[in-house]
């Protein structure tokens, strides 16, 4: 009967129900979008690091992220190769550069110079052209989602990066950049030329360990032999990049702040409507109390009302959030929804509604059953 009473109380006042659901829906959509953007941003920030085949990253001191790194002289590679436990060391160049669009105008791009044959970072999700073809003169690979941004139409288009001519030879999908500067993959030798680096110079050295080698031991050895460089594990480099872009720039704080605002607004709206509904049904709750119901029984009715609101609001909110997520797929900052986030949002909605029920429960706890005799 608790479920029936809660359901009827909830659906008795349709306008109030709609207000409640809009409150939850608004909250869910806002939190889903904000946290989805946050996850999307994280995925973009660490995309290169996650796809590189390296257990350790050697980089210049003070490197903040993949896109903002100092330069290594080149001799570090030879020293690293002599360290026990190191299987291979692949140089990689990553740096911002100016991209001149074919029809005029410039934009910022990030050159990623790498030789996959060395165990470097190869472009992934290639959807047009051939990744091997970027070894050809002037050939580069870019992500399809940035074609407009780069002033391109597709494979074969010609543009200019810094002072060098480039030709699009391959297109990838889903390699997006948090900085909005598209990644441009090319062989490392050409990247060095464009960025005017010496033949051995690079911004990163990707270290692959031999089978059975201990990451921490190798890292210590490398650090000892390369006192002027930083040796980071993949996880450390991920964290450093995330800290820089999400918290150093304030972008992540804004996204999380937006999500918290969503939770707050949702909680307040649901609390207000639940409280008003309880107040409307106070006479009925007093009757229930007079009939001998325990306080827990009445609290259960209110909590079930809150849970029903949560379930309905979550269903509607997630439906809208999924549509927005779908629409954002091709945008520069796609929203990410994971099963974990969806489950987390459900728990959050239930918690939000339970907390919202608190004021109503407090009200009903103070109920005077003697009011049933009020004429």
């Amino acid at each position, binding site marked *: 009967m608790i479920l029936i009473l809660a359901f009827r109380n909830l659906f008795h006042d349709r306008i109030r129900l709609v207000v409640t659901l809009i409150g939850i829906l608004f909250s869910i959509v806002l939190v889903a979008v904000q946290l989805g953007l946050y996850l999307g941003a994280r995925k973009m920030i660490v995309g290169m690091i996650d796809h590189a085949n390296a257990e350790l990253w050697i980089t210049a001191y003070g490197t903040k992220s993949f896109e903002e790194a100092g330069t290594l002289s080149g001799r570090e590679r030879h020293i690293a190769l002599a360290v026990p436990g190191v299987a291979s060391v692949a140089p990689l160049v990553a740096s911002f550069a100016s991209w001149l669009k074919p029809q005029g105008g410039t934009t910022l791009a990030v050159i990623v110079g790498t030789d996959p044959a060395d165990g470097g970072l190869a472009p992934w999700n290639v959807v047009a052209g051939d990744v091997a073809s970027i070894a050809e003169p002037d050939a580069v690979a870019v992500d399809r989602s940035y074609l407009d941004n780069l002033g391109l139409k597709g494979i074969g288009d010609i543009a200019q990066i810094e002072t060098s001519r480039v030709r699009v030879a391959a297109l990838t999908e889903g390699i997006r950049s948090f900085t909005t500067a598209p990644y441009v993959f090319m062989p490392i030798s050409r990247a060095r030329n464009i960025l005017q680096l010496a033949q051995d110079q690079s911004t990163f050295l990707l270290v692959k360990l031999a089978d059975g080698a201990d990451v921490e031991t190798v890292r210590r050895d490398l650090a000892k032999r390369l006192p002027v460089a930083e040796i980071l594990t993949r996880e450390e480099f991920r964290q450093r990049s995330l800290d820089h872009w999400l918290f150093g720039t304030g972008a992540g704080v804004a996204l999380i702040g937006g999500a918290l605002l969503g939770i707050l607004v949702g909680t307040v709206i649901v609390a207000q409507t639940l409280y008003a509904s309880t107040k409307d049904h106070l006479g*009925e709750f007093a009757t229930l109390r*007079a*009939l*001998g*119901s*325990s*306080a827990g029984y009445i609290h259960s009715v209110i909590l079930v009302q809150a849970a029903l609101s949560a379930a309905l609001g979550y269903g509607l909110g997630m439906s809208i959030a999924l549509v927005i997520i779908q629409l954002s797929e091709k945008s520069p900052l796609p929203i990410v929804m994971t099963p974990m986030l969806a489950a987390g949002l459900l728990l959050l909605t239930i918690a939000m509604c339970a907390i919202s029920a608190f004021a109503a429960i407090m009200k009903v706890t103070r109920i005077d059953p003697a009011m049933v005799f009020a004429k």
Partner: protein
Amino acid sequence: MSGRAILRARDLVKEHGSGAAKVRALKGVSLDLMPGELTLLMGPSGSGKTTLLSILGCILTQTSGHLTVNGQSTDGMSPEQLAAIRRSNIGFVFQSYNLFPTLTAIENVRLALDVRGHSGKAGIAMATAALESVGLSHRLTAYPRTMSGGEQQRVAIARSLAGSPPLIFADEPTAALDAENGLAVMALIQKLARDKSRAVLVVTHDHRTLQFADRILTIEDGLIVDDRRQAAATVHPARRRGKAASGHVRRKA
């Protein structure tokens, strides 16, 4: 009247407020409610009827005095313990019916049963039987708003019967009803009192209800000033035998 008292009240005093604003609503009420007896509690407005009903019904607590319900002293009980006493022992019928407007007749009765721990199919069967006993077997799924006042009060009576409590308290059950429905409802309440394991107390202003009473208590200014049994309960001639006063009567000074 038979057996021991289902409810025993001794020297009940109820004070509201404090200091100069203190009001003594009850000034020392003692009474017993016996099984098989329909008692009317009458008195002018402000005499303490509702306060007394609230205390006897374990909804309010007395300032002093003692109350025993079905052999259990309620003195010093917490609100939750009093709720448990109500749950096991007391059914209420209210002047304004106090039905849940969003629930059907049978659901209203089922709710009271659910509170008392009778749920599921057993609850449905008991609720159906209770509504049949008040002549509403054809209105099980009707909502209160579609029912007449008399029908609503009969649902409330069926609800008070849910779980067969030994005490039924009715607060002005006929006040909102026309003469015909009022008499029908009182006849129904009288029928409840025929159960020898149950005592029924009705607070009323309505003199048409006198004919149904086995006993009439009159309260004035917080004191029971008259307690008399009458031998003329209309539809219950069997109870004309052996009427002896059991109430504690205090005459007004």
